[in-house]
Each structure stands twice: as C-alpha cells, then as structure tokens.
C-alpha cells in the first residue's frame, strides 16, 4: 500500500498556477526526490504535503485516509526546512525534544530521546550547545534529528543541502541516504540539484512549470528521458534540431538513423538528443551516423576529457576517456559517430535548457 498519494493536486495564487494537476504515489519506505528548476512548484507541492498550504483542488491521502484539509500540526510529518528553522532560544537538546515536550512527554524522557537522536545523527555530546555555536552541517543534523523526534509517518526535506558547501553537501547526501535506509521511513526531498537527486533517491520526479515531466528511477530518468526538458535538466546533452524524413532524421544535411524508424511524419520538426558519453571518437568507427568534426576546445576533467567539436550537425560535446591513446588537441580533425542506440528523439518543441545543459556538471 502506498504511504502517501496525491490526486489531481492544483495550487493557484491568484492568476498564477504554481502546481497543475499532479497525481503521484510515494511508495512506502522509499526516498523520492522532487527535482526541478527554481519556480517549478516543487516546494509548493512539498508544503501542500506538509499541510502548510491548502491545495486549490485535489486530494492528499495517507494509507487511503484523506488528509487534504488536516492542518500541519495534526499530520505527524517531520519536515526539514531550507533554513533549518532551528529555534535560537533553545539548546540543541531542547530543539530536538521540542515535538515531545509540547506533546506532554516527561522532561527526562524527552531529553533521553533527544540524546538518542543526536547519537543517530552523530552529534553525541552536543545537547547543551546553543544553536549559534553550530556549523552549517551540524545545524542540518540537528534539524534532521528534530524532525525525526516525533517518529513521523512521512519525512519531508526542502532543499536540505542548499546551505552547505559543496564538499559537506556530498557527504551529507550519502549520510542522509544511509540514515533513511536504516530507518525505512517514506521520505520526500525537494532539490534543484540533479546530482543530489541521483545520489539519494530511489525515485526521481522531474517537475517543470508546475507539472510532472517524468517520474522514474535515476537510471530511467538519465538514460530514457521522457522529454527534451528532462534530457536537458538531468545530466548533460547535445541537442540537434532536425526534420523527420522516411524514418530517418535529417540534421544539417546529414541523415541520421535510429534503432527503429522514427514515428514522425516526413517533414515534422524533431529534436535529437545525445549524451556526450554516447558519442564515439576516432578512426575505424561504424559507418552509420558517422561524420567528421574539428576540435575547438578540450576541457580536461581528470578521468575524462570533454572534446568540443564543430560538425555539420552543429556544435557537439563528446566525452573521451582520459586513458585513450590519442590525445586530441584544438584544431585536430576527428571522425565521430553517433550510435543509433545513443540517440533520443523528441518532437521539435523549443527546449529551454540546451545551453545550460551542456555547461552543467
């Protein structure tokens, strides 16, 4: 049975529609990431799940029970806020014990439970400290411990890593994931960072403009993006605008083949997407989808190199393993191939993110 379900959820702020007709199931015990760019409605959706916003339409259910109109304080959902929202007038222990204290738990019992939770988030001995004495990472751990104190049915995290530096963020992503797996609690994380989502989530829901673009496992989302937007938002991708012609795709005068004939009418505008690691470089490549290109820039990233190429298909970026025998340099001419299996085809709708997608890590 699904722990949490959303059905037809909509949220309007005056004329503006923040969330539009979202229906989702959050499987019990899994970590789901709501991923999307700023303003896509992911935080609004999380706030509606938490009970901090009331949907304009639709229902929120937990185990079949409708909680759409149940106020936040009656939902028993733990939430970690972007700013952590720790109470500065309380000690670390009192912060963690807050939910228990206001519920009437005996002071000693609440303090003991708080200490257990602080042990869980590796903050043993920090109970008597003031919030102002903690680092960003420690604050985040306190926020997590505090949200877990009431043993929530659903654990919600709104951009929990955004206030941390890059190194700490990666460490905390792994730690949070291990903690979630240990506790087996249904968890929803809002993030705009695709690496964060890929690291932590069992399931990723990609959102754009208030709608769900795709829901699936990280591998499904990365290798089989449902839309050009998802292809651009998750990982890096080369976008090529073309026209369908007799089951093949014409791009810049080159006819590209696909594993199966394209299901588009001849003359339809389409968009082809290929990941940089999908492009093959060097001599002796298969004839299919093979062209020549000129190296315009080489970006050495250590284990791999990004080769920027000028081709008849347009500007492409190919990823080359650093252990390749031939080291390409700017100005070199090189044969490249786009294997049909590495190509993804979408209707020729304008894609908003091609430039940033190439630049994104």
């Amino acid at each position: 049975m699904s722990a949490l379900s959303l059905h037809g959820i909509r949220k309007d702020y005056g004329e503006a529609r923040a969330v539009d007709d979202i229906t989702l199931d959050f499987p019990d015990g899994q970590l789901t990431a709501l991923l999307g760019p700023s303003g896509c409605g992911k935080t609004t959706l999380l706030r509606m799940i938490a009970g901090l916003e009331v949907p304009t339409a639709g229902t929120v259910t937990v185990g079949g029970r409708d909680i759409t109109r149940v106020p936040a304080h009656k939902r028993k959902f733990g939430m970690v806020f972007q700013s952590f929202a720790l109470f500065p007038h309380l000690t670390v222990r009192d912060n963690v014990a807050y939910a228990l204290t206001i519920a009437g738990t005996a002071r000693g019992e609440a303090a003991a439970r708080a200490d257990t939770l602080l042990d869980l988030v590796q903050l043993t001995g920090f109970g008597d400290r003031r919030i102002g004495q903690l680092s960003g990472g420690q604050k985040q751990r306190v926020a997590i411990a505090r949200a877990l104190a009431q043993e929530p049915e659903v654990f919600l995290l709104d951009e929990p890593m955004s206030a941390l530096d890059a190194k700490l963020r990666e460490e905390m992503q792994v730690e949070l994931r291990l903690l979630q797996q240990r506790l087996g609690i249904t968890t929803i994380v809002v993030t705009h960072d695709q690496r964060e989502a890929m690291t932590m989530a069992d399931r990723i829901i990609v959102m754009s403009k208030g709608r769900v673009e795709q829901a699936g496992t990280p591998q499904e989302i990365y290798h089989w993006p449902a839309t050009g937007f998802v292809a651009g938002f998750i990982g890096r991708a080369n976008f090529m605008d073309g026209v369908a012609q007799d089951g093949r795709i014409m791009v810049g005068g080159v006819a590209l083949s696909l594993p199966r004939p394209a299901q588009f009418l001849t003359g339809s505008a389409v968009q082809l997407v290929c990941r940089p690691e999908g492009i093959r470089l060097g001599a002796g490549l298969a004839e299919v989808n093979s062209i020549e290109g000129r190296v315009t820039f080489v970006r050495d990233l250590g284990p791999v190199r990004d080769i920027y190429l000028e081709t008849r298909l347009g500007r492409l970026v190919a990823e080359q393993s650093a252990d390749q025998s031939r080291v390409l340099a700017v100005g070199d001419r090189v044969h490249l191939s786009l294997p049909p299996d590495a190509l993804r085809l979408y209707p020729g709708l304008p894609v908003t993110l091609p430039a940033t997608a190439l630049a994104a890590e």
Partner: protein
Amino acid sequence: MTVAAQIGPMAEVPPALRWGAVVNLLLWAIALLLCLVPFGLVLLISFGHKVEGAGWDWAFSSENYLRFFVGANWPAETTSLYLGQLYWSMRYAVVAAVLAVVTALPFTYLMTRQSRRAQARWLVFLLATLSLSEVFIVMGWDIILSNNSGLPMLFAASGVTDWLKDTGWFDVLRDWGLANPRNVKFKTSEFATVLTLSYLVWPYAVILLYPALSRLDPSLAEAARTMGARPWTVARTVILPAVRLPLMGTTLLLFVFLLGAYVAITVFADPSQHTTAVSIYENVRGSTLNAPFGAAQSVVLLVAAGAFLVLGQRLSRKSQGGA
C-alpha cells in the same frame, strides 16, 4: 633602516582633519549642554525653596524631597499624597504600556505576514496617526466616552443599559466604577484613562515591534507547526521567545513616554488618582506655583523611571541567560 626613519619626521595633521576634530568637539559640547543644563537646573532648583508671592529662591535644602516622601508636616504628621501620585504614574504607565504592546503584537505579526504593499500602506497610515497630538486624541476619546453625548448615551438609547441591568452586569460595572445609578459612565475612570493612554502609544508600539517581527523567519513557526504545535503553542514557545528583547524594549520605552502623560490624566482620571506629572505642572505653572517642589517631583520621577529601566534590563538579561 628603522620604521621611524622610513616614516621620517612627524607628519603634519592635515587641516581638514583638525577642523573635523574641532567640529566634533563642538557638537559634543552642544549635545551635552542641551542635555545636562536643563536637567542640572531642575536638580538645583529642587533644592531651593518657595518664597510666598515672590516665586522661589536658591538654597540647598532637602525640604522638597522630605515633603514628597513623608509630607510637609513631618515629623509631626506623615502623608503619602505624593507617593500615591507616583504610584498612579507608575500604574497607569505600566498597565497602558503593557496593554498597548500586548494588543500591538498580534496585529504587527499579522501585518508582517501580508504583502509588502499592504505592509507599506499600514506603516504609512500608522506614521500619519503619529502626527495627531495628545490633545487631539484626548478630545476624540472625551467625546466618545462623554456621559451625555458618547457611548453611555448610545447605550441608554439603544437599550444596552437596560439589558445590562436585566442581566446583572450593570451591578458589576458599578462595582468597577464604570456606572452611576442611572447609566454606564466612563468618565472619570481608570478604564478610560488606561484605554486612552494605550491608544496614544499604540502606533509607537507597532512601529517599534515591526522591525523585529518582519525579520522573524516564517519557517520557525512553520517548523513548530509540523512538529505538532497548535497556533497558541507556536506563539508561546517560538514567536514570543524570539521577540522577547524587542518586546521588553518597546514596553520600557512606552512606559517612560507615558510617565509624562498629562492631558489624558487630567481629563479621564479621578483627581484622587492624578499622577506626578499633573502635580508637577500644577507646581510649575498651575495653581500651586511651587517650582522647587515641582523640580523635586521631576527628579524623583526621573529616578523612578531610571530604576524601572534598570530593573527591566536586568530582567531581560536574566531571562536571556536562563532560556
């Protein structure tokens, strides 16, 4: 080469800096003069003595202070008339300041949760109300609470007075001094005095609380809600502790401001409940004309206010340390 040798002979101070120091000194001198001279004069005069029919004369006598604390006929007789007035000064100021802050707090909190435009409108409106003088405000409330033309008349005409009599509430109001045998009455009463004083300082309370409440992170209250806190629990355990210092500061500031209230007291308070401020005016410019005694009262009022401020500060420090 030593550092001193590198610097060379003592550098000349540029004329602009010299002039800057002189102007700075001058400004300090003017500020001290404006602050200390009036207070010094009041202090000096408080030790003088009244000359019947001829104003007052310089002296160094504690008779005015003795009169304040134990009465003019001490040791033959001890009276606490002026201590009583000081008590009413403190009582009105404390109650009205607390009432203003307690009512302004939820209003200001809700105001800060509105849109920026709505907040700006409210702030402009509240700042505009500050242009109203105490006299104007008291006149307005005098009309509203007047026995012949204000709320009592409306109560009588609309049947509320009869309803109060039927339900027994009229007797309760009489016990509270808010009714005469025929109708409800607000003048003179402590209720009307405190109400008007609170009204007088209410916009100040909002404006003083606004910065702290507008900076309050809304996610603090939301976090408490997600942990099972009801709205009142959120207010008690999160919002109030977060704005404890601004609350204390605002209350103390309004308290000091209200110690000097004059018009509202003379119009709404019973003469037996008049304050030190009214008595000071009577002595300095009114019927009694005893400037040295008025000055002594002023000094006592100032010292009492200072003591209250120190007490308030200590309390807030203690609560901060104990939190």
